[in-house]
């Protein structure tokens, strides 16, 4: 990972009141790669992503995006810089149609032609969203909502996408489908920081991986190395 580092965390710690959720972690994402952040429930993965995107404020440490310190920037400014967080649970906007959800994804895109082109691309990539364009986003199935959440992020034109458990709650077939989508996103140039509970799958896609445990990095390495080490698989990655 000597190449261009797009995102870098230095000693990031975050807490909710007295509960320390993340306890001083270092993490790097190289441009063009998929980096996965693994760990059991409650390890601090979501908090890490929220700290990057500015929803949770870091207690100590710095977040550098393209070399720029974004640690104390407001969340909407971080998003405008191109850090696009697809949160756990998708957060499709209730009361807004699929099309409106997508259009809001491009809230920061002022060029109407560019917005329309991106909408066409998203519809081409996820035809189901085009079919359901006028229905309330919250009425879609889990898998469709995940596509909507990713499509909405694409409308923004991300430089890096933070994906929090995109396969959560999906049927096994859809989990594989989602992973394929993530892979394709990356192949078309999007850098991805992927949080997953399904470690085996994530390590198949990723170039590099981190394992978080109780708010601390326990392990890191090339994905190929992590997934081929049986002791690691057993100790940290479960099934």
């Amino acid at each position, binding site marked *: 990972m000597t190449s261009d580092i797009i995102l870098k965390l230095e000693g990031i710690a975050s807490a909710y009141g007295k509960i320390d959720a993340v306890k001083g972690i270092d993490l790097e994402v190289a441009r063009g790669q998929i980096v996965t952040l693994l760990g059991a429930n409650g390890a601090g993965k979501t908090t890490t992503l929220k700290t990057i995107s500015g929803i949770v404020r870091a207690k100590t440490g710095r977040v550098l995006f393209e070399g720029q310190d974004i640690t104390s920037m407001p*969340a*909407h400014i971080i*998003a405008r810089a191109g850090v696009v967080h697809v*949160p756990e649970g998708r*957060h499709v906007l209730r*009361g807004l149609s699929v099309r409106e959800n997508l259009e*809001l994804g491009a809230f920061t895109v002022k060029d109407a032609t560019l917005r329309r082109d991106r909408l066409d691309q998203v519809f081409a990539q996820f035809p189901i969203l085009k079919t359901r364009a006028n229905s309330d986003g919250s009425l879609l199935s889990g898998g469709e909502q995940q596509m909507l959440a990713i499509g909405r992020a694409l409308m*923004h034109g991300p430089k890096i996408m933070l994906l929090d458990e995109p396969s959560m709650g999906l049927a096994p077939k859809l989990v594989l489908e989602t992973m394929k989508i993530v892979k394709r996103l990356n192949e078309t140039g999007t850098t991805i920081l992927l949080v997953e509970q399904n470690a085996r799958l994530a390590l198949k896609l990723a170039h590099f991986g981190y394992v978080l445990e109780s708010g601390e990095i326990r392990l890191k390495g090339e994905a190929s190395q992590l997934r081929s080490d049986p002791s690691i698989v057993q100790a940290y990655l479960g099934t």
Partner: protein
Amino acid sequence: MTIFDIFTNQLLNGIVLGSFYALVALGYTMVFGVVKLLNFAHGELYMVGGFAGFLVLSFLAPFIGAGWFGVAVSMVFAMIAIGFLGVVIERVAYAPMLSAPRLSILITALAVSLVLQNGMLALTKGQYVPFGSALGFGGINLGKLFISYNQMILVSVAALLMLALEMFVSRTQYGRAMRAVAVDKDMSRLMGINVNAVIAVTFFLGSALAAAAGTMAGAFYGSLWYFMGFLIGLKAFTAAVIGGIGSIPGAMLGGLILGLLESFATQLDLRGMGIPFKVGSEWKDVFSFSVLILILVFKPTGLLGKSEQERM
């Protein structure tokens, strides 16, 4: 007058009254939708808006007259001024409180309301202030029903403002952002929406609509009073709740229903039919609030309201 004449006449009065209620109810419902705050100072913005319109009109009348044109121009200035006042109130009084317990914010809103009301009491010494508009008395006769041009203009302006708001909220990117902020603030931030700016715009629009209603009420009824915002504030809140608080079409519908209810209530007299029941104007509020309670018994979320979470 036949029953039919009374009916059409009260229908007209109800629509005029309902337009005022709807305009004020919109501010209540928008602010509630976006920040989940019952802005009890909202009725006072209607009152202060009326006085702002009066001030502008007294400056401009020598140049552009005090007819509907003068009133309309004054209304626009009042809307802008009170819109900014709403934003200032939000920044100074509510923003620091938004993470405080609900009750604290409610008390803050009551305090803001008292400051505005008593400020105006001090300025006007409690006197009625003639608005100074010079509107004509013309109109058209439809059978026995007389519709004044004033009523027509007032209702059209109110309808136009509401249509504009509805278009803004449903069709523009910023309107979508407002709806997004109402349902999910963190997700809105992640999409690059400046949530504080959206909240400010919401307060601006809601306050501006109250000022429009206040100015038109001053022009239409002829005078202003420091206490005029109190009851309409309560009623607009009622209208917003009937319609389903947080819902924009709901506030419009609720305002209209409340206006019609009150206007018909004043004429409700069943004694001629051998039933000893008469509402009359002194009991009209009791009557309409009873209907409100009834509606809420059968539909606790209001007519167009959705479940607890899905508002606006």
